[in-house]
């Protein structure tokens, strides 16, 4: 026994050696760049000459000068991007959740070919986001798009609809594409949770003649709730940083610009490293806050006090 505990101690020492290479890489690729971004957000650095800049405090975030407010917190474009991001995140995640549960319940039925169905569900997820964005951009094309042609054929619309062209419809379209791409993923998570549920409960409910809808809300939903909560958190954090779908489908158009698109535009297109870093730091702060709340409330490693 003492030999084992001595080995445990030796192993604890070598544990650090084993984690070290990974930690060094993460420090280089995450911690250091993040620290630099936060530092740059307090400067007026530009991309033209990133080595010469002045420290300007919090001026990129909020500053008052000669009767006017400056900084991202008063920048209508940034606030607009914040609003867009929140709308996108809430709308897409709630739709994905509801549809994901419905699709999981449908696919959970014991019919032949369930394996094929599950495979079909992985297809939208496997298609690269840029490719999905391009395919949908083509399908939603106002003149030659198949969506308009089908809707017109069914008599649902009179003339071509400009899905992606500068109106609030653009955001609707983006949400729709994200829902198409990500709902199957949510559905697969729900499906995995559904398949761990004990069959006896459902037998009992059936024998007692309880209506299936009631069974769903009273039995199924409470049992799969933990899985749903995790899915929602991950999807929300993912949606808050949305970049590629929006960037490819509508570029930097104001109606759909998200915080990530705004930050990259300031950084790369406007070459304003200071301001762009401030915008990225703002987004990081929001996501970090959400992550801390998630870890504090749900404790994904469990509550045991072990090291």
């Amino acid at each position, binding site marked *: 026994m003492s030999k084992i505990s001595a080995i445990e101690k030796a192993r604890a020492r*070598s544990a650090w050696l*084993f984690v070290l*290479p990974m930690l060094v*890489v993460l420090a280089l690729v995450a911690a250091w760049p993040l620290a630099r971004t936060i530092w740059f957000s307090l400067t007026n650095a530009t991309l033209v000459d990133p080595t010469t800049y002045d420290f300007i405090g919090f001026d990129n975030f909020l500053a008052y000068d000669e009767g006017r407010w400056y900084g991202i917190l008063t920048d209508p474009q940034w606030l607009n991007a914040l609003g867009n991001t929140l709308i996108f995140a809430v709308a897409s995640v709630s739709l994905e959740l509801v549809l994901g549960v419905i699709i999981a319940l449908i696919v959970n039925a014991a*019919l032949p070919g369930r394996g094929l169905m*599950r495979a079909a569900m992985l297809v939208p997820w*496997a298609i690269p*986001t840029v490719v999905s964005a391009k395919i949908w951009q083509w399908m939603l094309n106002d003149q030659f798009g198949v969506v308009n042609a089908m809707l017109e054929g069914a008599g649902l619309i009179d003339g071509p609809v400009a899905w992606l062209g500068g109106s609030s419809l653009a955001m609707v379209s983006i949400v729709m594409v994200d829902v198409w791409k990500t709902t199957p993923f949510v559905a697969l998570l729900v499906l995995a949770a559904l398949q761990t549920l004990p069959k006896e409960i459902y037998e009992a409910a059936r024998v007692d003649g309880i209506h299936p809808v009631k069974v769903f809300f009273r039995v199924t939903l409470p049992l799969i709730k933990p899985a749903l909560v995790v899915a929602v958190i991950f999807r929300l954090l993912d949606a808050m940083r949305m*970049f590629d779908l929006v960037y490819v489908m509508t570029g930097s158009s104001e109606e759909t610009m998200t915080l990530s698109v705004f930050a990259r535009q300031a950084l790369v297109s406007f070459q304003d490293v200071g301001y762009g870093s401030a915008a990225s730091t703002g987004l990081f702060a929001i996501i970090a806050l959400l992550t801390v709340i998630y870890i504090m409330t749900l404790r994904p490693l469990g509550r045991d006090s072990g090291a």
Partner: protein
Amino acid sequence: MRGRALLKNGAMALLWLVVAAFLLFPFYYAVVSSLREGSALFDASLWPSDPTFANYRAVMTDQPFATNILNSLLVAFSVVVLSLGLAVFASYAFGRAKFKGRRLLLYTILGVSMFPQVAVLSGLFEIVRLFGLYNSLLSLVFSYMIFTLPFTVWVLTSFMRDLPVEIEEAAIMDGASSWTIVIRVFLPLLAPALVTTGLLAFIAAWNEFLFALSFTLTNEQRTVPVAIALLTGASQYELPWGNIMAASVIVTLPLIALVLVFQRKLVAGLTAGAVKG
């Protein structure tokens, strides 16, 4: 009773078809469009009347698209090998050893996996330039670690933790070093988990867009997603939709094949990744 069950199953099967059509139609339509050329593209019917492979030829000859595919493959393979190599040892420590700071480190790694990529963009850009990696594939292999490492470490740790103690005890009693134990005992046992996480890391790297767009400049260094996003035709305002759809089909087919072959493993890995972080 039998009639009712039949009706119910029939209704369910119909729902399945609706869901499947909704999921698969966009890709089907991309295939149809990729087989159309010229004015046939503007015909929105659902069947290619006069299929042609001209778009595929155009993409492979007019563009450095073959190079782009090779770039994506190189980057994705290197990312997989590097992140699995680092993660196997880290996850052994996290999953099997008790040491101070283990919990905090794991939470930090989970936190990193939530990072918005744009938050490290300016800092990474500086490092990439400092090492002279701008417009080089190495900049992508390096920067992709930020999303593949946390994920592989987290999932492999949960696999490591679930392996029985007895496996290791015998080796420890024989006086094997931790290094030997990882290589000889755990690596073979982890093989299925490595396939799953490796595949997920491969897909993530293959699909990445923001870093690839920001750290590469010339067409020859681009990866597939950037090449497709920036594919332009004769004029700036006229997108070559046929070519774009052909390129999309080319890069998606292998992924769909992979996903279909490894279906069960992928679902298991995805749920492990989500449930346990």
